[in-house]
């Protein structure tokens, strides 16, 4: 091997390759996309898979909702249910029987007609415990669905879902559930193409390649044309979808944009139309731009700290209330969070279909110090210490550090921080070995019940040790029987007041959705569920003129 190059020869080669490269990276994807009707969408992490009955994350839901469609669909502007595969539905007098009338035009992407039997078979697959569907509880309002899903019931025939004929599906509910139609938009209730699945193995098999590009059969507005791992997923307009005339996009490309700073940079150089989120410290920069692409809107979710009320010193309600009153939520939001969110004083986000939660307290340091003194820790003496557990993330750290100092200044108490890696944090919360832990809950459907049922004694996601029979009774028995929405909300209001008096958790803020959306993207409204309906979205080529 002869190393005979000399420094003189090497220099020209080096300069050559520098000039070759410095010719810019050509036309940006956004400009191309606007011309070809292709939306470039920053989708967060790499999707796990596309089987509606297996996936759990948000990134997966965006793609599954493009490839499949439920019986009903959320209108992106009003969030009210719209006809999907079911062109209409009627609810019985006592609200316990729902009959869906399927749209005869509804087709699978391989041309097969959609039938009611598809739904019976699909719901059986979704509820089958062997499937391991973590969102099976979406169908629990259906009679005996929970029994079947927990293995107590073998025969699926007893579950309240029947195909009266090819195009009529009748569902028998356990009790009147006003939000049941909304659940039909959740992908774990979607129908899946039986022949395709059975071609590759048993119904409940998780390893089958039926969701591969060459095999997948869906019934949504788009079909899957390319999936390059950790690179991009491309879907194109389906020509079998019943409402295809309304669809104005020719295709969508989803990018796994895990690193939020890189995602923002891709947006800035025109590689993305839409970003999943935005780095906290970039918010003031974008907000200052005129006709900025920064979009901020309320989002159906609450950020709060779980309090383990079985562990000292949190078993004393006065301590819990003191901790909550000592926090200046407005100041936290305006400084560290750059006014991106809304301070919260309860669990239910304000304006959830018109429901306004009670506000029992505000930022009151004097009252907080008094409460703490009553509880036996005057000016922080004898304070045993308190540990706040949170999972590793930029914003969680910033909030925790700010609050740690607020408690120190206001109550002169020591709060130590324990930053844990994702799975370790989940394990700590699950095993209740924490004193105070960060928690965020995003609504599955737009109804106060989805937030208030968190703190039921048997609530799977309670994790506070709080259990009040009177509260349970109001939520599980009284509310469903309310004859009108006002009466139901009054019961919810009373229940939430009782809850906040006990303060098993410290609400911090109500989520907001934060995205960078290119001005050329039209009819992609922000809504409380931040839900994406690609059927309505279109790209306006001469967006600059409009500005």
């Amino acid at each position: 091997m002869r190393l005979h190059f000399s420094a003189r020869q090497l220099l020209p080669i080096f300069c050559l390759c520098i000039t070759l490269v410095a010719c810019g990276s050509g036309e940006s994807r956004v400009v191309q996309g606007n011309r070809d009707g292709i939306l470039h969408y920053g989708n967060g992490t790499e999707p796990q898979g596309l089987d509606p009955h297996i996936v759990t994350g948000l990134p997966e839901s965006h793609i599954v909702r493009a490839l499949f469609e439920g019986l009903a669909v959320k209108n992106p502007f009003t969030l009210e249910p719209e006809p999907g595969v079911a062109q209409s539905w009627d609810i019985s007098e006592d609200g316990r029987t729902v009959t869906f009338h399927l749209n005869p035009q509804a087709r699978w992407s391989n041309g097969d007609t959609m039938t009611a039997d598809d739904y019976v078979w699909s719901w059986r697959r979704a509820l089958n415990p062997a499937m391991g569907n973590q969102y099976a509880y979406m169908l629990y309002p259906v009679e005996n669905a929970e029994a079947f899903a927990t293995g107590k019931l073998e025969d699926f025939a007893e579950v309240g879902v029947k195909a009266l004929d090819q195009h009529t599906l009748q569902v028998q509910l356990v009790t009147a559930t006003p939000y049941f139609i909304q659940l039909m938009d959740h992908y774990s209730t979607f129908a899946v193409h039986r022949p395709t699945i059975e071609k590759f193995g048993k119904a409940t098999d998780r390893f089958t390649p039926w969701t591969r590009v060459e095999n997948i059969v869906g019934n949504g507005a788009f079909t899957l044309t390319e999936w390059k791992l950790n690179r991009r997923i491309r879907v194109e307009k389906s020509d079998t979808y019943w409402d295809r005339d309304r669809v104005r996009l020719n295709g969508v490309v989803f990018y796994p944009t895990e690193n939020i700073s890189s995602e923002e940079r891709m947006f800035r150089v025109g590689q993305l139309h839409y970003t999943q989120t935005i780095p906290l410290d970039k918010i003031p920069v974008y907000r200052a731009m005129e006709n900025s692409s920064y979009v901020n809107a309320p989002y159906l979710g609450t950020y709060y700290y779980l309090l383990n009320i079985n562990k000292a010193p949190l078993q004393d309600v006065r301590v819990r209330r003191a901790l909550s009153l000592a926090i200046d939520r407005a100041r936290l939001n305006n400084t560290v969070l750059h006014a991106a969110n809304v301070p919260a004083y309860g669990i239910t986000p304000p304006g959830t279909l018109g429901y306004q939660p009670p506000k029992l307290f505000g930022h009151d340091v004097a009252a907080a110090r008094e409460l703490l003194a009553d509880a036996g820790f005057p000016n922080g003496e004898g304070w045993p210490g308190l540990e706040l557990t949170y999972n590793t993330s930029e914003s969680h750290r910033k909030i925790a550090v700010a609050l740690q100092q607020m408690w120190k200044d206001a109550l002169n108490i020591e709060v130590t921080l324990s930053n844990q890696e994702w799975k370790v944090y989940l394990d700590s919360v699950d095993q209740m070995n924490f004193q105070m832990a960060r928690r965020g809950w995003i609504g599955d459907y737009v109804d106060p019940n989805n937030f208030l049922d968190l703190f039921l004694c048997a609530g799977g996601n309670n994790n506070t040790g709080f259990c009040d029979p009177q509260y349970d009774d109001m939520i599980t028995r009284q509310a469903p029987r309310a004859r009108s929405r006002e009466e139901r909300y009054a019961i919810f209001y009373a229940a939430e007041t009782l809850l906040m008096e006990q303060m098993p958790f410290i609400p911090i803020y109500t989520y907001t959705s934060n995205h960078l959306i290119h001005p050329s993207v039209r009819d992609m409204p922000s809504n409380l569920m931040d839900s994406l309906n690609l059927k309505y979205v279109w790209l306006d080529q001469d967006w600059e003129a409009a500005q």
Partner: protein
Amino acid sequence: MWRFIAYRLLQAVPVILAVITVTFFLVRVAPGGPFDSEKAVVPEVKAALEAQYRLDQPLLTQYAAYLGDLAQGELGPSFKYPGRSVNELIAAGLPVTAELGLYALLVAMVIGGLAGVIASLKPNTAQDYLPMSAAMIGICMPSFLLGPLLVLVFGIYLDWLPVSGWGDIPGDKILPAITLGSTYAAYIARLSRAGMLEVMTQDYIRTARAKGLPEWQVVTRHALRGGLIPVVAFLGPAFAGLLSGSFVVETIFQIPGLGRFYVQAAFNRDYTMILGTTVFLSTLIVLFNLLSDILAAWMNPRLRTQFSEH
């Protein structure tokens, strides 16, 4: 020669086996399982999931089953990506990481090598300190700082190079390679400087000068070969370091490499994925160590003749 390679490869098998065993049990000790998620999972569903992936069997049987599959080259299904096998994910990720590692090594050798050689010509003068300090920047600027900085300057302000991606837009491999390679440029600069200084004091350099050759020919024709052997011997460990550090660069530049899969797998307790990536990364490291040892030996004629004799 081939006996030597066969011998080293044979030695690699216990090394990789040890790596698998250590990782297999270490991962299971970590708190949190593959199926925990923020929304509490119904116990029955969790049990069903664990049964599907044979996690409910005793640890030793799982270990034996895993080795059995591994023998046939089957790395098992991924927990996090149902429907995809670890083989498939690695097949997608490995070539990218290896390619990124090679380009980074190239960058490190060019920057480090040039800096080291130039510095060694006039030790302890400005011509020594300037290139060495420039190469030193690589060490004190971590990739999670250098990457974004390069992207800002070349990607956004100058708009010369793409901001992210791998292989889609021409030129998108340059910034990641520089970011990853710069750390090792410093090591290589120091090694090549020391190597060259050592060689320049050798007698055969004086002979070359006595022949009346100009200084730059003395350096390139005579000094370079001997001076750069320590650098070549260092390529093996450097590549190992690059592979380990690659996933930061992969996250910053959205590169579909194995490193990124690995971190996701570690954080999601995707046991089969962790094992699969560890096995492949270790094999890549062992192979590359072997390659750099052979290359270093090949450059030295004395060892080369010994090789070809037996």
